[in-house]
């Protein structure tokens, strides 16, 4: 059933229908505006494991995601892209923009300036940034993005987020109705689909899921950390005898655990506010509180309701956001539940990781 979500031909089909594809890299990208311009925003995964060409341009200590996406760009796997949109959400993203611009030929490119803190000033600033972005899309693609277009797109994306929220609930069942790996695969499939199409599919899937029998009951894990665009990582963890009942990855709950206020009259302002208030990855924080404390309180809230047996933090040596936060996260979370830290690098050193995961399981029993 999961397989039907995956369809590598879908993007080509959109192009045949006259649609143009815009690549995105970060869950802070306000895809609603791209969608309202009649374009198809597609989050890029970077499926290539073998990095052959990228190291001629970038150092090997960058995060796996930036290396893999750039490699795919270089070898032409993203030739379907009409453009790409970057954000200044972290240092790597910000600096990769110019390297992409110099080396990957597309018709359109844009970098959005994302604020570091959340308050009234930054909301006004981000609203202006998004208005400028809207104008840039209008100019380049010769379209008018009306308030109605934006509001329609907000509705589609709000439905997308609430459906994913609903899907995640089936993981908390005792026993769970769906594994973490399968949810991740569905999530990934959604990234390269027009959300209105994905929404219908996922709604149908959720309806079927409610009648499904539960999975075998296994120790339950909460997973937090970097974006995981490779189902292999979750499959590896779950095959050692766990079920991942929740993940707040950048491409997990942090991607949908917010909504855009449909009652605000200026839709761009509503989008700016929505994304600024989205669960943080450590890149920005509310005024008067540290980003790390915000992450912790988000996790703690969920731990209270989910009561998992353990927590796995997935890190990446090349990710500065997780490098600077993981020590504090580990220390604080270990006060609540047993914690395992996995530092992921590709190709995966599977046996080493399996030893850690199995030992973690043994220590819980």
């Amino acid at each position, binding site marked *: 059933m999961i397989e039907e979500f995956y369809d590598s031909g879908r993007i080509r089909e959109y192009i045949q229908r006259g649609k143009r594809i815009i690549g995105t890299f970060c869950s802070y990208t306000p895809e609603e505006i791209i969608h309202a311009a009649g374009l198809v925003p597609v989050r890029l995964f970077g499926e290539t494991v073998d990095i052959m060409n990228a190291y001629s341009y970038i150092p090997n200590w960058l995060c796996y995601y930036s290396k893999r996406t750039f490699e795919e760009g270089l070898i032409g796997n993203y030739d379907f892209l009409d453009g790409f949109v970057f954000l200044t959400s972290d240092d790597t993203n910000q600096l990769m923009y110019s390297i992409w611009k110099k080396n990957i030929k597309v018709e359109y490119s844009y970098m959005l300036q994302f604020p570091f803190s959340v308050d009234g000033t930054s909301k006004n600033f981000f609203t202006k940034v998004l208005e400028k972005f809207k104008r840039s899309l209008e100019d380049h693609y010769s379209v008018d993005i009306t308030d109605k277009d934006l509001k329609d797109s907000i509705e589609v994306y709000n439905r997308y987020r609430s459906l994913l929220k609903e899907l995640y609930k089936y993981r908390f069942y005792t026993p769970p109705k769906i594994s973490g790996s399968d949810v991740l695969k569905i999530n990934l499939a959604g990234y390269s689909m027009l959300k209105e199409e994905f929404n219908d599919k996922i709604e149908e899937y959720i309806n079927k899921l409610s009648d499904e029998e539960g999975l075998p009951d296994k120790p339950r894990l909460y997973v937090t950390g970097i974006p995981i665009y490779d189902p292999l990582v979750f499959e590896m963890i779950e095959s050692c005898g766990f079920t991942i009942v929740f993940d707040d990855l950048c491409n997990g709950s942090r991607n949908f655990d917010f909504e855009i206020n449909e009652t605000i009259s200026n839709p761009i302002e509503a989008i700016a506010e929505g994304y600024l208030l989205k669960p943080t990855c450590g890149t920005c924080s509310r005024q008067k509180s540290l980003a790390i404390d915000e992450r912790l309180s988000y996790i703690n809230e969920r731990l209270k309701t989910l009561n998992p047996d353990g927590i796995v933090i997935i890190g990446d040596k090349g990710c500065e956001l997780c490098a600077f936060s993981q020590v504090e996260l580990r220390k604080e979370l270990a006060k609540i539940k047993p914690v395992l830290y996995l530092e992921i*690098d590709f190709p995966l050193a599977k046996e*080493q990781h399996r030893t*850690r995961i199995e*030992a973690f399981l043994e*220590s819980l029993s």
Partner: protein
Amino acid sequence: MYFCGLDIGSCMSKIVLIDENEDIVCYRSSKSGFEIRKTISNLYESVLKDQNIRKDQVKYIVATGYGRNVALAFFADDKVTEITCHAKGVHKIFPKCHTVIDIGGQDSKAIRLDIDGRVSTFVMNDKCAAGSGRFLEVMSNAIGVSVDDLGLLSMKSKNKATISSTCTVFAETEVISMIASEVKREDIIAGIHDAIATKVSALTRSTGIEDEVVMTGGVAKNIGVVKSLEEKIGHVIYVPPEPLITGALGAALIAKDRYESKICDAET
């Protein structure tokens, strides 16, 4: 009635046989090599033959280490990770141990034990040979001294060299340039031990250190690394008489536990 623990490590395979009183009857080790299955069978059969023990007298076999899945597929009754096994084995020898530092051929780990000897937390090094037995092997090769002699030789050092790199490949380059500048052999070796100890002490500190601290794995046989590590973490380090076999001993003890609970389940 006997119980067997097998620890198939990246470099060495170890076997321990215990009796129903948990006393070690026999232990042995050999290079793991490429043909793990053959290594396992040879070790097992040679131990049984020497001790005049029949196969049916061995009631339960637990495999651990990198080769545990291979052993489970054709031979063992169960598998357990080396982290749990080292904890179990060390707790048997040092009941007051709360921190285990294990440096094996390919990885190093720090394990924290609770009062009952259960694993409370652990860390392992990542895809990197620095701070492992492999690091010592590469260096011993570069300076032309057998791995077994490194420890005592380093004790003669009066002017320890500094190896700045934590990467095995680059550290070897540093060592080679020291050889070219005629730095004394014992000083280079002492520097190499220090480099390992620096890496492993950082790893150990991340789990917190609580007495007693016990070091296991082949590298624990190297007095130079043990002393340097003691200095860096500021705790006395105890080393079991045979640090190589604590994982296999733990596996044998778990084999006995599992056999007993199986019998118990069958009776109820």
